[in-house]
C-alpha cells in the first residue's frame, strides 16, 4: 500500500471529488495561485480552473457566507480557512446560517458545505494561532465535526464530508500535514460518526480524537514496553460522537483517560466523561481523568508552550494514576 503524507491524502480527496462532481468547488485564501498556504490544494487550479479553485480576499466572514449562499442554490462548496483561528470571524455564518437554515426553513434548504482548515497548536505560534475549536463547533446542532488524525482517515473522511448534504466542519492540523501513513490506491470512504480502535489493550482506554490520536499512540507504545496495553479509541468524528465505541472499550478496560488538545472547561472531554458516567458507571474501577491544554492562552516560549500542551508523558501519568500505579 502506498505511503503518503496527510497533505497529499487531502489533496487526493479534493481532486477525486472535484473530478466526480462538477458542483464541488474550493474557495479560500491562497488556495489557487499560491497553491494553498499549506499546499493542500497544489495543482488544483491547473486542473480545474479559476471558477472552481477560487482565491478570495482576506474576508473570512464574507467568503464563508458566499459558500453558504452557493450551497443553498445547489453547489457544493469547500471553504478553506487558513486556520480555524481565523474562522472565528466567520463563525456567524457557520452558527447562524449554515447550521440553522434547514431547521428554520422547515426542511426546505439544506446546506451541503465543508468548512476545513488546520486546527489547534503548531509550534511557537503563541496565543492567537494555537487554538482548538472542536468543542466550540461541536456545541451546535446542525453541523458535523470531523477530526481526522491520519492520512488514511483524512482522505476517507474528507470524501465523505464533501458528499454529505449537511454542513461539515473538518479540522486538520498544521503538524499533521507532513505525517505519513498508508493510503490505498483504490477508492474508499470512511463513514462519518464511526470511531476507530487504533490500539488494543485491556488495561485502560484512551478516548481521544484528531491530532491527539498520535499522542495517544506514542503513550500506548511506551506503556507497552512496561507491559501495559491500552485501548486507543480515536473518535475521528466528535459530532456525532460514536458513543457505542466508547462504551465497548470502557466496559472492557474499566478505566478511561480522555485526551484532547483544547482547554478543559466545556471541552470535548467533558462530553465524553458524561457519556461514560451515564453508560459505564457500574463498570468503572477508577474516576476518569482528563488530559488537555493548560487553562491559559498558549504562550510563545518553548518551555512554557511544552508545559501547556497535552503530550504523551502527561497521558502516561494519567493512565498510571487511574491504574493506581503511582
Amino acid at each position: 500500500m502506498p505511503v503518503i503524507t496527510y497533505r497529499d491524502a487531502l489533496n487526493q480527496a479534493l481532486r477525486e471529488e472535484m473530478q466526480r462532481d462538477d458542483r464541488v468547488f474550493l474557495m479560500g485564501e491562497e488556495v489557487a495561485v499560491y497553491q494553498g498556504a499549506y499546499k493542500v490544494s497544489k495543482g488544483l487550479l491547473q486542473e480545474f480552473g479559476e471558477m472552481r479553485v477560487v482565491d478570495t480576499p482576506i474576508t473570512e466572514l464574507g467568503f464563508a457566507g458566499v459558500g453558504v449562499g452557493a450551497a443553498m442554490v445547489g453547489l457544493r462548496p469547500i471553504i478553506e480557512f487558513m486556520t480555524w483561528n481565523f474562522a472565528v470571524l466567520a463563525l456567524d455564518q457557520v452558527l447562524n446560517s449554515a447550521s440553522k437554515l434547514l431547521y428554520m426553513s422547515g426542511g426546505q434548504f439544506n446546506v451541503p458545505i465543508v468548512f476545513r482548515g488546520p486546527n489547534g497548536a503548531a509550534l511557537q505560534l503563541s496565543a492567537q494561532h494555537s487554538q482548538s475549536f472542536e468543542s466550540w463547533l461541536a456545541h451546535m446542532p446542525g453541523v458535523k465535526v470531523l477530526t481526522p488524525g491520519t492520512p488514511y482517515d483524512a482522505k476517507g473522511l474528507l470524501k465523505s464530508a464533501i458528499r454529505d448534504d449537511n454542513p461539515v466542519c473538518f479540522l486538520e492540523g498544521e503538524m499533521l500535514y507532513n505525517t505519513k501513513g498508508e493510503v490505498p490506491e483504490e477508492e474508499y470512504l470512511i463513514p462519518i460518526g464511526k470511531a476507530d480502535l487504533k490500539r488494543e489493550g485491556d488495561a485502560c482506554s484512551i478516548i481521544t480524537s484528531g491530532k491527539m490520536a498520535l499522542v495517544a499512540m506514542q503513550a500506548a507504545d511506551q506503556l507497552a514496553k512496561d507491559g501495559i496495553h491500552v485501548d486507543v479509541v480515536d473518535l475521528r468524528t466528535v459530532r456525532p460522537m460514536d458513543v457505542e465505541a466508547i462504551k465497548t472499550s470502557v466496559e472492557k478496560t474499566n478505566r478511561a483517560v480522555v485526551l484532547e488538545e483544547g482547554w478543559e472547561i466545556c471541552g470535548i472531554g467533558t462530553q465524553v466523561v458524561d457519556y461514560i458516567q451515564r453508560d459505564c458507571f457500574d463498570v468503572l474501577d477508577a474516576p476518569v481523568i482528563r488530559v488537555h491544554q493548560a487553562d491559559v492562552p498558549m504562550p510563545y516560549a518553548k518551555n512554557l508552550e511544552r508545559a501547556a500542551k497535552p503530550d504523551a508523558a502527561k497521558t502516561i501519568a494519567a493512565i498510571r494514576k487511574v491504574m493506581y500505579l503511582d
Partner: protein
Amino acid sequence: MAKKKSDQSKSASDPTLNLDLLRSMLLQRRFEERCAEAYALGKIGGFCHLYIGQEAVSTGTLSLLRPDDYIITTYRDHGQALARGMAPRSVMAELFGRIDGCARGKGGSMHMFDKSLNFLGGHGIVGAHVPLATGVGFAIKYRGGDQVCICFMGESVVNTGAFHEALNMAGLWKLPVVYVIENNRYGMGTALERASAIHDIFERGASYNIPRAVCDGQDVFAVRTAAQEAIDRARTDSLPTLLEVRTYRFMGHSMSDAVSGTYRTKAELDEYMKRDPIALLRVHMHENNELSDEDLQKLDEEMKAVCQDAWDFADKSPEPPLEALFEDVLVDTTSDATAEPVAAD
C-alpha cells in the same frame, strides 16, 4: 430624479399592470394590519417587524423578476414574501407557529422561506444574509446562467462588516446581484445620520466599483424604473448594483416600540405618511381614469377577504407535532455517499 422617472412612466401608464401593483401593495398592507391585530391577541409571538409604508419597494422590485430569479432578505420579510407570490395562508400559518406554515412553524416572522419561489429566506442577523446573496450570484455565474439575485436590506446593514465584505467580492468578481437598500431612515431607533459617516448610502458603491443609484421608494414607478436598470445590468452584463431606495416605515421597528415620540417625532411621521405608496398609486390611477372608487372598494374588500381566509386557515392549522422538534436538524445522507455524481448545470 425620481419625479422625472415617474413622469416618464406615467406617459406609458398601463392600467392592467397598475392594478396588479396596487393589488400586491394592498395585500401586504391589509395582511400586516391583521398581523398587528393577531400579535395583540397573542396569536403571533416573538419578534414581529412590520413593513407598512415600504410596500412600493417589494412590489416595485419583485414585479420585474422571472420565476427562476432569487430573492433573499432580512427579518422584515412578510411584505416581500407576499409580493413574490407566497400564499398568504402559508405566511400567516407560519406567523401563528402552525404546521401549515411555510417553515412548518419552525421559523416564525423573521424566517419566511419558499424554495419553489426561490425565496431564500428572511434572515435575522443584521448583515449576515448579504454574503449569502453574493454566494447566490457566484452560483449563477458558476453555472453560466442569466438569473438575478435581489438582496433586500435596511440602511443600517451598510455599517456591518458582512456588507462590506460581500459587496467587495461582488464588485471584484462581477456578480449578478442587485443589493437593494431600503433606507427607511432608522436602524431600530438610531437615525441614519447618527450611525453612518456617509448619508448618501448609494455612494458606498464607489468603494467596491459597483454601479449605484438612488430612487424614491414611495413611488412604485420610480422603484420599477431604477430596479429595471439594475436587473438588466445583472442579467445582461453580470454586474452588481447598489440601489438605495428611500422609504419610510409607518410602524415601529417591531411590535414593542412606540410608532413615534422617542427617536422620531409625530410631525415627521405625519409628513411621511402623506406619501403613502398605496395612496400615491391610487391617485395616479384615479387621475388616469384607471380606477373608480367602486373598483378600489371592491379590490380592498377582496384583499381583506384573502387576509381573513389566511387568518382562519392559520387559526385552524394544528400546532407542529412534538416529533417535529427533532426533525430537519440534519438531512439524512446515509444513501448519498454512493450516489451518482451530478453536473453543475
